[in-house]
Each structure stands twice: as C-alpha cells, then as structure tokens.
C-alpha cells in the first residue's frame, strides 16, 4: 500500500497551535466557548486544542465527547455499528460550540453531530474545526477552521493517526 | 398364484432358522422353505432377495388408525399402507376413535373396512370402559365376538382400581389381554418429561412417577386377580425396574416400548418442535439407557410403534396446544435396527420382539416362516441408508421428529397372506 505523508508529528503540532489561535481570535477569547470532539479521533484532537487554550489563556474550557452513531443517516445500511457513549457533562445552551473532527469529507458526520448537539440544547452558535479538509462535500457544510485543505482522488483515503490511539502522529494519504 | 422369494438370508426367530433359504409361497400360505428351490411352476413370480433379510411380517400391538371419526388424520387405508411399507403385516389399532370402539358395531366397522381396504391385517383393540370414560365396562364380550384381540383405554389409564380389577377379571372369559396405558392424571397434566430439559424449556412437565405409579398399581391388581396384563409404551427406568421385579414372581405381565423411547431423549424437546410431543413424553438419558437394558435383558417383550398420526395443523401450533403423538410406522424398523448395531439385541432377538412376542400376546398364529403358516413375509435391507422425508410418507400423519435424518435399514418388500402389498425390490 503506497502512502504519502502530508502532515508529520511536528506539522500536526503546528497546525493544532494555529487552529487554537484562530478559534481564540475569531471568538475574541474564551467566553462562552466549549469544545466537543467527535468520536473517535476528533476527541483526541479536541483535547489537544483544549490543552493549547490552557497554555495560551490559562483557562480550562468545557470539553465533551460526542458519538454520532445514533444520528447517522446511513445506519440501516451499516452492519451493526457500535454505539459509544456521548459524554457532555455541561449545558450547551447559549454556548459557542466548537465541533472538532479529524477529517471533513462529505459533511454527513458534521450534519449528524449538529443534530445531536441540537437535541442536547440550543447553543448560541456551532463552529467546525477539522485537521484535514479533503473536499468532495455532499452537504452545504464548510469548516470554520481547517488545518490543511487537501483534495484527494476518489481511490485515495486520508488517514489521521494520533498518538493516543495509534501510537504515532501523522496524516497520510493511501491508495485504497 | 405362486411366489418364490429366492436367495435371501432367512431369519426366523420362532424356528431359530438363520441362513440362506428360498421360500415358496402358494396362495395365502407358505408352501416350502428350503435351502434351494430350483424347480418352480411356470408363472411363478420370482423375488430376488439376495443380500437382503427375509423375515416374518412385523406385528404391531399398538397403533392408531383414526378411522372412524378422524379420517383427516389417517384412514384404515392410508394407515395400513404406511404399516405395510414399514414392514408390518398385522397391526392392532387402539379404541380412541370417534365413536370409540366400545361396541360391536364399531368393531365390525373397523374389521369390515380393514378387510376391504387394508393393505395389512388389522386387529381392533376394544375399549375397557364405555367411551374411555372409566365409568362402566364396555361390552367386551360382544366386541370379542366381532373380532377384538385385546382391550385398552389407551390414551389414559383406567381410573379407579376397582374398575380395572373388574376389567381384568371379566376379560379372562375371553382370554383377552388388558393393555394398560400408565399415567396418573393427578401427577401429569404437562407435555414433556419432568427433568432438566423441562427446567430449561419451561414447559409443563409429566414426572416419571406418573407412569410408574400406575404401572405398579395395575401390576398389583393383575397379580391379585391372576389375570394377564400388558403395559404399553413403557418409557421410564422406574417402570422397567417395577416390571422386572414383578415378572420374577408373576408371569402374566408383559410390556412394550416404542422406538422413540430408545432413540430420543427429552433434549429433543428443547427446540419446541411439536413433533417431539408424545405421551408418555420423551424421557431422560438414564431412562433411555434403562429401556435399552430392559430390551436386552428381556424385561421388555415387545417393540410397538404407537403410530399416532395427526393432521399438520394440530402440530403447527404452540407446543402446549399441539397434539401428542408420532407417526411411527415408516421409521420403526430402521430405528429398531439401531439396537442391533448398538449390540443391545441380535437380529433374531429384535425380530422376536416384533413378531413372535406380539403374536404370543395376541394369541396369533402369525410371526413365523414355516410351511403351512400364513404367508406374512417381509424382505429388508438392514444397512441401506435413507433420509426420512415426511412428505413421502404413505401415512397421512407427517408428524415425525425424524424428518431429515439419515437412518439405516429399510423394508423393501411386504407380503400379506401371499399378496404382495409393497415392493421396492
């Protein structure tokens, strides 16, 4: 399997730092801000952004993990998708929610995540931060913060590996 | 019309003949049995039985032909056709028809119908009590004159020891055996054996003692009035033990069991397959082992089928609501031959329990291949493998738990009174 590294460990670190600054800049600080990572790798990415915010601002933001399985639009076509826990212990009403995911592709996951959050309450606004935007959207969804915009061919796959679960940090493109 | 059955291995338990013999049938009786019959008249039908077993036609002391009254389950014609296929040349049909066979007219109807349409010989069993109600004795003498060979309230026990005592005493006039279905109704009321399987399935259960209690009671009464008693479809280790002990001091006790009681255990009911619902119920492994041991030791004299055909819809319901019974004619021989393969009985011993002993119980001259005897003969292959297909049964009753199973041993030819009624050779 041929692979092409588009972000290595250092590049991911720099990208997370940049996204963090963009979030703080756009929202003019941390007031009313919270982070919700989409399972699985969006959760680790959101934690890194969270830690970076603490470094920069000295503040800990509310952070949660979202499992979107129950909201998927293709659930009846999947073979027994496993439902994992959603852990959001704070009130999302009137918050600015930054949804964090690793890869943005069709936009369907984001749609499901938005619906899931709306069922939890009524946030002031929802923003989207992703590490990789690989294009080919199927829904009118656009990221507020994108680490790298990287169009790939149909027969290619973007894989994000994160140290917490994969043992290393890298973003690679592989031929399917 | 003459028929020559040539080249088969004759096994006749009555005469202890076992070897290559030719059998010449002349009309309804056996004309000659000898090592080699070379010269035959022109027009003699030759049956090649080489590599097969030639034996007396089997006699079933317990079956249900359902006519009159339940023709949608079976008729005398379909039932006897199934019996003939299975190797039976004489069958005893139980009295739980509608109307019940508790009077001369019903007995005569069965006898006439069997004579007209039966593929094999049918001997009716009369009811012990009118309507099988355990209230008053049926007209046993009149039924005897019409042709019954035994009396039984099969399906239930005669309630009330006093009434059974009278029946046993009264039947002595005609030397009729009383056939007893052993079931204490205050202890039964379920539909499967009480054991680990019923615990797992949650189905209401019938304990072994429901059978054993009545077996013990009936034996005690028979002994007291010195009358012959036959206990039918014995299924438990306890019953075998009780009968074994009784037989040592009282010779007029006989009993039978059925192929399903030495082939299947109550585990078969765990799938809720209503074809495994039978009364008495399929018992535990220990019971099955005891039944086999009883057959080996000779405590159990006879193998009967308890052929109990039912229409599909009566089995195609919840287990609790399903009828009791297994359609048994067409699998009985194959299942019984399993006893020979398992070393429980030798072939002669097995045939004894399906020919000589039933004939003795009923006082028949059948069950033997000898010159001058009725030409009731079967030819079977003890090793032929075949797959049970209920849809190919001659019986209307497709209710078999053995559907789809591969069995060994198959009857291929049946002759009743010199008439070939089944021929697959």
């Amino acid at each position, binding site marked *: 399997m041929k692979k092409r590294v588009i972000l290595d460990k250092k590049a991911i670190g720099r990208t997370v730092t940049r996204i963090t600054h963009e979030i703080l800049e756009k929202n003019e600080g941390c007031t009313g801000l919270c982070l919700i990572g989409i399972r699985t790798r969006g959760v680790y990415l959101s934690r890194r952004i969270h830690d970076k915010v603490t470094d920069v601002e000295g503040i800990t933001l509310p952070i949660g993990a979202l499992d979107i399985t129950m*909201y998927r639009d293709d659930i009846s076509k999947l073979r027994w998708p496993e*439902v994992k826990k959603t852990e959001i212990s704070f009130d999302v009403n009137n918050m600015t929610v930054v949804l964090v995911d690793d890869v943005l592709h069709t936009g369907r996951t984001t749609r499901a995540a938005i619906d899931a959050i709306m069922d939890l309450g009524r946030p002031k606004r929802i923003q989207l931060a992703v590490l990789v935007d690989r294009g080919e959207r199927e829904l009118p969804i656009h990221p507020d913060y994108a680490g790298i915009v990287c169009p790939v061919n149909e027969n290619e796959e973007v894989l994000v590996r994160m140290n917490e679960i994969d043992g290393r940090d890298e973003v690679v493109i592989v031929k399917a | 019309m003459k028929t020559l059955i040539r080249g088969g291995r004759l096994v006749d338990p009555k005469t202890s003949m076992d070897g290559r013999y030719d059998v010449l049938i002349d009309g309804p009786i056996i004309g000659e049995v000898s090592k080699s019959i070379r010269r035959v008249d022109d027009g003699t039908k030759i049956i090649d039985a080489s590599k097969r077993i030639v034996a007396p036609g089997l006699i079933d002391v317990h079956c249900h032909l359902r006519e009159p009254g339940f023709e949608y389950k079976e008729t005398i014609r379909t039932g006897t056709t199934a019996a003939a296929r299975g190797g039976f040349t004489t069958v005893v049909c139980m009295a739980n028809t509608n109307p019940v066979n508790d009077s001369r007219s019903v007995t005569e109807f069965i006898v006439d119908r069997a004579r007209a349409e039966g593929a094999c010989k049918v001997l009716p069993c009369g009811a012990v009590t009118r309507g099988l109600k355990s209230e008053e004795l049926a007209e046993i003498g009149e039924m005897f004159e019409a042709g019954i060979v035994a009396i039984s309230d099969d399906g239930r026990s005669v309630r009330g020891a006093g009434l059974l005592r009278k029946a046993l005493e009264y039947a002595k006039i005609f030397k009729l055996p009383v056939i007893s279905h052993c079931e204490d109704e205050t202890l039964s009321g379920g539909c499967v054996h009480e054991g680990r399987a019923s615990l*797992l399935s949650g189905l209401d259960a019938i304990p072994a003692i429901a059978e054993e209690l009545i077996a013990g009671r009936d034996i005690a009464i028979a002994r007291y009035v010195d009358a012959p008693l036959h206990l039918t479809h014995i299924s438990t280790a306890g019953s075998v033990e009780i009968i074994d002990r009784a037989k040592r001091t009282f010779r007029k006790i006989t009993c039978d069991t059925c192929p399903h009681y030495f082939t299947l255990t109550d585990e078969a009911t765990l799938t809720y397959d209503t074809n495994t619902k039978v009364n008495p119920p399929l018992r535990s492994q220990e019971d099955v082992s005891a039944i086999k041991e009883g057959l080996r030791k000779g405590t159990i004299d006879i193998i009967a089928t308890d052929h109990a055909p039912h229409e599909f819809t009566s089995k195609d319901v919840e287990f609790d609501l399903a009828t009791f019974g297994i359609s048994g004619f067409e699998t009985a021989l194959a299942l019984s031959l399993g006893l020979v393969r398992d070393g429980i009985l030798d072939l002669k011993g097995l045939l004894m329990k399906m020919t000589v002993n039933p004939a003795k119980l009923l006082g028949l001259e059948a069950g033997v291949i000898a010159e001058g005897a009725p030409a009731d003969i079967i030819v079977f292959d003890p090793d032929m493998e075949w797959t049970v297909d209920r849809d190919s049964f001659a019986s209307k009753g497709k209710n078999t738990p053995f559907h789809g199973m591969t069995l060994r041993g198959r009857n291929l030819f049946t002759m009743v009174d010199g008439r070939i009624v089944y021929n697959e050779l």
Partner: protein
Amino acid sequence: MNWKRKDLLGIRDLSKEEMLFILDTAESFKDISKREIKKVPTLRGKTVITLFYEPSTRTRTSFEIAAKRLSADTINISSSTSSSTKGESLKDTARNLESMRPDAIVIRHGMPGAPHMLARILDSCIINGGDGSHEHPTQALLDLFTIRDKKGRIEGLKVVIVGDIAHSRVARSNIFSLRNFGNDVICCGPPTMIPPHIETLGVKVEYDLKRAVRNADVIMMLRIQKERGGTTYIPSTKEYSTLYGLGRDHVETARNDVIIMHPGPMNRGIEISDEVADGPSSVILDQVENGVAVRMAVLYLLIGGEA
C-alpha cells in the same frame, strides 16, 4: 463485537460477550432518557409491534417507550385470547402482522416456545417479552444492568432469588445470566415452588429465608403469581407472607450494601414489606428506568443495522 442475531429468544442462548455488549450499548442509550429531548432518530422509519397475549403494563410500556425514543413507530396489539377460546391461531396472527412489514415483533405469551415458533416462520426480528414459565430475557438483562450499575460488577456476588422459582420466567432467565457470570445463586422458596433438578443449573436451594439472605449482595423477590394457580402450591398467601415475605430484619442480616430487586408488579405486604420496597436498599425503580435503556439497546442491536 460482531452482533449477528436476528432474534432475542432467551438468555440461555447468549454468551457473556453478547450480554456485556448489550449492557454497554444500553449505557449509551440510558443518557437519552435523562435529556430534555428524549429522542434520537436512530430507528426512524422502523416499525415495532408489541404482541401481548398476557396482561402486562410494565413490559409493554417499557418496550413502547424504548422504541419511541429511538424514533421507531410502535403498534400495540393486546389479546386476552386464552388458549381455549376459539380465535385466530398465533401463527395466522403473526403471518398477518408480518404482511404489514414490521421490523420487530415483541411477543408476550403464556406458553413457552411461542416466540421460538414465530422466529421460525417470520422474517421479522422476534423479541421474547416473556413466554410462559420459560424466559424473560430483557428482564434478566435489565437486572444485570442494574446490578452492574449499583455494585460495579456482575461476578462473584451472592444473589438470592426468592419466590415461585418453578413458574417464574424471571427466575430462569436470571439464573442463566447470573450463573454464566459466575455468581453464587441461591433459590429460596417453599419446595413446591422449587423445580426438581434445579441444582443442575448450578444454583443452591435454601428453604429458610433467614438463612438464605444472610450476607447476600443482591436479593431478588419474585411476584407470587396468582394467575398461574400459584396459591395451590402454598396453603395461603398469608402463610407465604409469614415464611417468605421479605422484611427489614432480613435485609439487616444481608450485606450493608445489599440491593433489593423486584420485577414488578409487587404484591406489597405479601412477598415484600412496604418498608423494604420503599427503603434505601430498594432499586426497584432503577430497574424500571434501566429497562427502557436495555430495551433500546436490544431494539437497536436487532433492527438498527443491516440484516
């Protein structure tokens, strides 16, 4: 975990892994019932029929809420038709229902094996909502869920089941699940209500309630089933209450953190005193709450994905 089952017919068929998978899935669904918007779109467009041949409010409602919270459509069919009255046969009813293309049928029936019969003839997923004295799998799963929630574990516990073990599908299903996880299970009740051969299931039998509950981690009380002729197994409910009614003094000899369970509906003052039913050890209402989550999980696993 690769969930492959079409039907949920009994606990005895399930492996430990399958049970744990259901419990874990139920954990995810439990939170939904705590939200303001108690609904997810997961089973949108699916149809669940509850077919109840025995009166039951609790189980039927629980399944119905579970299905609705997953956005499935539910249809309730309650039939008090007893076996003796001449109605449509179960098979015909089921076939008719199937023509309406439900995705799942939850059946409660007075006769063991009725769900198995449906499973054989229908393509829909069949969930056993209680069949005679046989099994009540979702009850055992919600009990297991509640025990895990309260005790933090579901193995190595001393669990006492008290009542009519012989005629209780709740007892059977719980024995299968609890033994599978290696718990000590003690069945307590009058001998007329303890089925023969019960010890072959790996449980102990104790006729004396006081002795049975000593140091128990979990006490499960069963309902005295009057509708099953339960009273013919005991001289009177009054005497039963004297011998097998759970009171505070019993609870005091159990472990400090003992939990008291009851599948409901309770006969207060017969098998359980008010004091115990409403006391601090009682988790009876938690069972009801968890029942919805467990049934959501079961429905999700059976009809959520592609068959």
